[in-house]
């Protein structure tokens, strides 16, 4: 397909090296999934005997994992709500209006994504410590939103850019009010993007470590901080099970995003059926 001669040996070498690099990416994940079912958590690979023991230990009495799990879920849920509110308004401002200092606003939004997380976390620690808010789930959710909302904004900007504004103009020309347009046209078309933004905000907060570690107290420990602590202080095999659950959770979330996008991809096409032949850009580009 390139128009260059390719030697067979060259192709085999290239394929082999590329496969090794792919394994380099996939193996750390696969090994956790397998080890979490292994009877002998560290001694042998592949395992000799299989067990569900580590998963049972997770939810046994006196286990610290359920509390960490529910705290992380609560913080992530709060953070998702904040990020969606910020994301929808900011994306509307950046795509559907004339905004003075637009590039400055855009740079501000990108800021938390390029500045090292540890710097952001340190700043938030210095902000919340004097306010005696260390260990407060609300403080952690507010902190996580600093990292999650830019991602939501970027996804929703891509979503709104992908929606043909003529649909909104057409509705307006037929007398629809702003609310009606938002409710009947923009929202249904933007729904897949909003779900994707919600899922990515949730994952960002759920996996966040730096801010959580700085803002956590003895009683409020999020799941990633708990995993980190179990890896540094006392490696217990149940950490493998919780890691496997986190992997499954992330893959499930990504699959959900893909499903929603696939379901939503046909919608605008059917609304603009007269133009599908000429080819309209599919809604929602990837922004992450």
């Amino acid at each position: 397909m390139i128009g260059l001669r390719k030697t067979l040996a060259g192709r085999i070498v290239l394929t082999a090296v590329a496969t090794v690099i792919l394994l380099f990416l996939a193996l750390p994940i696969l090994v956790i999934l397998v080890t979490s079912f292994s009877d002998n958590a560290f001694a042998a690979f592949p395992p000799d005997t299989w067990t569900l023991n580590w998963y049972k230990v997770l939810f046994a009495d006196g286990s610290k994992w359920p509390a960490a799990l529910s705290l992380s879920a609560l913080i992530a849920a709060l953070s998702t709500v904040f990020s969606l509110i910020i994301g929808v308004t900011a994306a509307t401002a950046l795509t559907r209006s004339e905004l003075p200092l637009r590039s400055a606003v855009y740079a501000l939004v990108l800021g938390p994504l390029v500045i090292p997380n540890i710097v952001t976390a340190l700043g938030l620690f210095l902000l919340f410590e004097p306010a005696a808010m260390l260990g407060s789930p609300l403080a952690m959710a507010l902190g996580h939103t600093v990292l999650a909302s830019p991602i939501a904004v970027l996804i929703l900007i891509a979503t709104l850019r992908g929606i043909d504004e003529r649909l909104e103009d057409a509705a307006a020309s037929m007398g629809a009010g702003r609310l009606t347009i938002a409710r009947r046209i923009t929202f249904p078309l933007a729904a897949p993007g909003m779900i994707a933004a919600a899922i990515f905000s949730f994952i960002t907060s759920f996996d966040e470590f730096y801010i959580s570690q700085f803002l956590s107290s003895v009683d409020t420990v999020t799941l990633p901080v708990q995993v980190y602590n179990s890896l540094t202080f006392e490696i217990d095999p149940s950490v493998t099970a919780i890691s496997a659950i986190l992997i499954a959770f992330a893959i499930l979330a990504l699959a959900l995003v893909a499903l929603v996008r696939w379901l939503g991809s046909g919608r605008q096409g059917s609304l603009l059926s007269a133009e599908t032949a000429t080819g309209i850009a599919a809604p929602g580009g990837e922004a992450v």
Partner: protein
Amino acid sequence: MAALTAAPARPRKLLASRKTRVGILYALPVVVYLLVLFVYPIISTLFLSLKNADGSLTLHWYVDALTGVNLSVLITTLRISAETALLSLVFGFILANAISRLRPLWAGLAMLIVVVPHFISALVRTYGWIILLGDKGLVNETLAWAPGAPYQLLYNELGVVIGTTSMMLPYTVLLLYGVMRGVDRGLLAAAASMGAGRVTIFRRVYLPLVAPGLASAGLLSFILSLGYYITPALMGGPNQTMIATLINQQVTKENQWNGAAAQGVLLLLLTLAGLLLVKLVSSLGASAKKRSAS
């Protein structure tokens, strides 16, 4: 006549100002939020790093951060980040190049293996490496026949670089894949038709075309490694302490906020310098592209 021209101008102006007002209203939440919870904390970090115990201005936290143990930590940080950037660039180049030659279905599958790990917690992936690289881990078991096995692959610099490289690899692959897809294959074919060999084509045509992408991918993974904490802390030994680990220790263990603030500001400045370089490289690349096109 004047009334006629003024009539369409006025509603347009009104509409524009209304659109502006709506824009400002909708931009307010994100701007206020990030100013209060992102910009203000960073500015107060900056002030803290310049403040003495009695409130007077000082640079001595920066002198502290740039001498003795702290300086060696800074150098370690730069060294590990450079090693990580180099490795993830080389691996990323090979993988992106291989994927860009695959049929769409296989390319999609390979990209899935690249992208999915990126969304799995770095903590979890680091733990996976700890299992893999241990004395009885899969890697040492497979290499059991080799002389000198088992190898020490953890709690040293090799372990850290393996870990951080696997974290940065998705970024470089994604960036380079985009660049490589943009390369006009016709140019390569043209060079071949004029008798250029494979090596010449690669060196004289392909490499110059992807060079700006390579530079920014390398710089980006360097910048992202600078502030890395989890993998060096879990997979490194005492000689692999990076600046983020130090900041964390000073805050959580030693209550030394000013020192931590100074190191945070240094990290921030290094990152901003790197980003400036990325911008410079991409504008240079753009102007080179323009020149070659004309």
